[in-house]
């Protein structure tokens, strides 16, 4: 680990290079948790974000799942929104202009029922100016077609990425589901298929029931769990994916503060996305950016890049620091 001892007060360099995508800092708002930017305009300055990932877009508008769509669980939130969105045309004409007025990289999360949908979305967005990258959603647990169905199988995941890769020159991020046995296999498959970057994880398949009415708490019966409850799962997935591929990895899942984010950098993430925390603290992403900077300053690290993936896997026994070692 490179320590910069001569400039303790200097601002550390938070910029990150994610394959073809360069960001001024490594913190993004995760898809589905920040709308199209405008919704949180009054509460947080989106221009300070490394990037914003907008709500998943499909070719046609989608109504989403019947309500109830949300249930809160310990340190978590289960949702079954069902990818409600305004559709590609209205996204381009009605939602994108607001973000174009802001100086922030826009990453468009795309979703389709069929392989061809993904390809068409990519080729049409390829012609739209002001888009920094596409994030391929093959990991939503709340829809009957597409979504996790594609992301749970290495061959199918690869076929989606190939189709999108052939349709656009934009940087590609592929978002993986944790609801698989070996996420590293999926990661390798999408890397071989041409993704530039991998983000992980999407929500964890979950459920909640009411013991009095004997009914599910979600109309969709099952949904996807997010929030601090899934952070250790996300961390493990990020660690495994980072070990399995050469491309950069974005860590996502239950990050609520800067120290959470540092865990993901340590296991190999080059950037992070913040989701559920936005609902609780609309300025969570900005606090995390400031907190990362502080952490690096205090630790005397001049560039975030120097911290990424530096985990020493030899575990230290708790309370066994040298100062209290026995036998001396």
């Amino acid at each position, binding site marked *: 680990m490179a320590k910069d001892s001569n400039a303790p007060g200097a601002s550390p360099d938070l910029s990150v290079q994610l394959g073809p995508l360069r960001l001024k800092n490594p913190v993004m708002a995760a898809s589905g948790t920040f709308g199209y930017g405008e*919704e949180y305009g009054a509460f947080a300055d989106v221009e300070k974000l490394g990037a914003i990932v907008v709500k998943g877009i499909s070719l046609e508008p989608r109504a989403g799942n019947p309500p109830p769509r949300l249930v809160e669980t310990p340190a978590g939130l289960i949702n079954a929104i069902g990818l409600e969105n305004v559709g590609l045309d209205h996204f381009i004409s009605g939602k994108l202009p607001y973000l174009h007025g802001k100086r922030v990289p826009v990453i468009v999360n795309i979703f389709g029922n069929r392989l061809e949908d993904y390809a068409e979305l990519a080729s049409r967005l390829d012609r739209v100016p002001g888009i920094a990258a596409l994030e391929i959603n093959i990991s939503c647990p709340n829809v009957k077609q597409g979504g996790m169905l594609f992301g749970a199988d290495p061959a199918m995941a690869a076929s989606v990425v190939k189709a999108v890769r052939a349709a656009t020159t934009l940087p590609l991020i592929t978002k993986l589901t944790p609801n698989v046995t070996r996420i590293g296999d999926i990661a390798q498959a999408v890397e071989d298929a041409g993704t530039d970057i991998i983000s992980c994880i999407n929500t964890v398949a979950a459920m909640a029931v009411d013991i009095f009415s004997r009914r599910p708490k979600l109309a969709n019966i099952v949904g996807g769990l997010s929030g601090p409850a899934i952070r250790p799962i996300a961390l493990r997935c990020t660690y495994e994916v980072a070990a399995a591929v050469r491309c950069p990895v974005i860590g996502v899942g239950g990050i609520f503060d800067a120290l959470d984010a540092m865990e993901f950098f340590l296991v190999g993430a080059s950037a992070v996305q913040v989701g559920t925390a936005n609902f*609780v603290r609309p300025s969570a992403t900005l606090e995390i950016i400031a907190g990362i900077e502080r952490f690096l300053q205090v630790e005397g690290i001049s560039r975030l890049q120097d911290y990424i993936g530096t985990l020493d896997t030899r575990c230290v026994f708790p309370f066994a620091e040298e100062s209290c070692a026995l036998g001396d």
Partner: protein
Amino acid sequence: MVKIQEQAWIMEHEKLARQTYRLMLQSPEIAAAARAGQFAMVRLGDGLDPLLRRPFSFHRIFPKQGIIEILYRIVGRGTGKLSRIQVGDSLDVMGPLGNAFRLPSCDSSLVVLVAGGIGIAPFFALMQDLVGRPDASLHLFYGARSGDELLPPQLFDGLRVTVHRSTDDGSLGYCGRVTDLFQEFMGSALPRPDAVYSCGPLAMQYHVARWALNQGVDAQLSLESLMACGVGACLGCALPAIGADDPATDHYLHVCKDGPIFSPGSIQWQKIQMHRALPQTFLYN
């Protein structure tokens, strides 16, 4: 529209009825912008349980004094935790959010409010606005399961409102549902109202909505939902709506950005599953 996030100091925290509390908050910027019918998202402490903010309508708004009030009933973990907040503590509040009640037109002669249980909460802010309208007569139909859940009568002093009370168990006022009492009056003792406002359990609101649609009376329903963000980002607080074009396709409105005030004709009531009242939830508190 202005939206603010501010740290609001608790000035008063008072129990007003069974499991029902009123919080007075010093929140000058939100108080200056808030209107009757809108709501705030309140964070209940710094911890992860409960994780999400909770939506509360403005109970009373005092813009000059920089004060907002929240009236709530303990129904679960969030409100259970809220009930233990002390005077002098502070809460992180986002607001004002959502749309507001449309005030009745100036020539309205009869304005009727229908409130079920904690559904009374936003009507105090509305009545504050209507106090300056001496021409309109104001009737409130106010029901609860039992008399000890109703706010004490002196709280209505000075609001120039005639209150008709009902309880499901008959312990106070009319014995039966508030919608039955409301409909009895509407059929006889009171003329056709110029404006109807409703807030309470969904099944109650459905009755008011059906009545208003049948009578062709202008009604405004204050609806609620579980919410994560309160600002239209998560799309979690969906309600089945009458589709704009094709009635066969699903179409949803969102309580936080399209509401919380809705017209009866915009909701597709048949698609909302209503079930029996759940047992007392003190088990979770």
